[in-house]
């Protein structure tokens, strides 16, 4: 097993696609960097924190993007966002089988504030255009920083979200919530609480991620290959069904209960044992009714 979380974005990308198949657009040597960081005394990155390009996956043509969580927390700035938008718009023109994003991001890059906010929205619109065109869109979330903020919203706009059991997918980090409403609201130092509220195991059990894998590069590759044919068209009927299921799930927690309680109410047997289970042991425990909120099966 090779820990996906411990790899850099470029290492993950190399492990994901067919060996040697990645061709990068706007590579580091072209120095397409942020125009906004120097004024804050922050060094730029040659690729502005995201590598994009085309590759093959099990022999099939795909477009890929890999966000580097180590640079500015993977935050989306003007150039970073535009690289993603360009990739998605190019996909509409060139029609690969899928667009895969290795997503690790805190969301809008605060150092670029307004430009980052608009950029995230442009990525969201472009992603939904690709999805509507019938091209599979896949988010692979497995980095230590997780996928948060505006990128958390964008990622859930894709057909398929793959998470490792140690990854997180949410909006606001626990520190931000604790800062706003105190440790009683959300104790950011309680790691077990944080992971059962926003981590891969919880997202799997409650239906917010479609595939659960180990923290292993090969497992992510296998999941990505399976996702190449897992389009889920956004029809009125599909959104109406999702609306009802999301509301029903929210109604299960009208008393601000903990994840353990929510899991039990969803029908997970022995909720307390969940944190100790690995992905293989956990996968079959997702209740059948929850699978309707995601695709069925891993």
């Amino acid at each position, binding site marked *: 097993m090779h820990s996906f979380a411990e790899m850099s*974005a470029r290492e993950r990308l190399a492990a994901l696609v067919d060996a040697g198949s990645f061709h990068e657009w706007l590579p*580091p040597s072209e120095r397409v960097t942020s125009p906004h960081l*120097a004024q804050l005394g*922050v*060094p*730029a*990155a*040659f690729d502005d924190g995201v590598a994009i390009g085309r590759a093959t996956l099990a022999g099939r043509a795909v477009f890929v993007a890999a966000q580097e969580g180590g640079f500015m927390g993977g935050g989306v700035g003007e150039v970073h966002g535009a690289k993603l938008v360009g990739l998605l718009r190019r996909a509409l023109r060139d029609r690969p089988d899928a667009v895969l994003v290795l997503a690790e991001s805190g969301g809008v890059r605060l150092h670029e504030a307004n430009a980052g906010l608009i950029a995230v929205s442009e990525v969201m619109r472009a992603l939904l255009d690709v999805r509507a065109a019938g091209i599979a869109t896949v988010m692979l979330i497995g980095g230590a920083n997780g996928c948060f903020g505006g990128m958390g919203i964008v990622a859930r706009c894709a057909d398929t979200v793959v998470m490792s059991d140690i990854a997180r997918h949410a909006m606001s980090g626990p520190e931000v919530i604790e800062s706003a409403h105190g440790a009683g609201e959300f104790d950011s130092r309680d790691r077990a609480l944080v992971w059962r509220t926003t981590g891969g195991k919880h997202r799997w059990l409650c239906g917010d991620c479609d595939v659960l894998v180990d923290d292993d590069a090969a497992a992510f590759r296998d999941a990505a290959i399976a996702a190449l044919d897992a389009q889920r068209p956004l029809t009125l009927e599909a959104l109406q069904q999702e609306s009802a299921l999301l509301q029903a799930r929210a109604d299960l927690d009208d008393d601000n209960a903990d994840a353990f309680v929510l899991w039990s109410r969803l029908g997970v047997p022995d909720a307390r044992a969940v944190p100790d289970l690995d992905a293989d042991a956990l996968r079959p425990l997702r209740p059948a009714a929850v699978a309707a909120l995601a695709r069925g099966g891993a």
Partner: protein
Amino acid sequence: METLHFAFDGGTAPAPFAPTLVGVVASGNLEVLVEPSPDTGCRIDVDTSARGFGAVWEAVLRDFHERHGIAGLSIAIHDMGATPAVVSLRLDQVIAAIQGVTP
């Protein structure tokens, strides 16, 4: 942030290579981009988040140049407070990468 420029004479040009990047601009880390240069010697440009370490960079980079003896390189660095050991490591890694040596 501080921007530093260095140039070292001498050395042997390597076999042709494509622009190569190692590292990440993360806290305590750096990225190093190396490209072929038609000039003799070795040119190194550094953008670093830490100010006032010019003498340390000079020493580390001079040592790197003497250790590898390679000319015809243009090296660009974005540094986020890496220690000299990490800087030397990344430079060694990028040279290994352009020489096709698997680390």
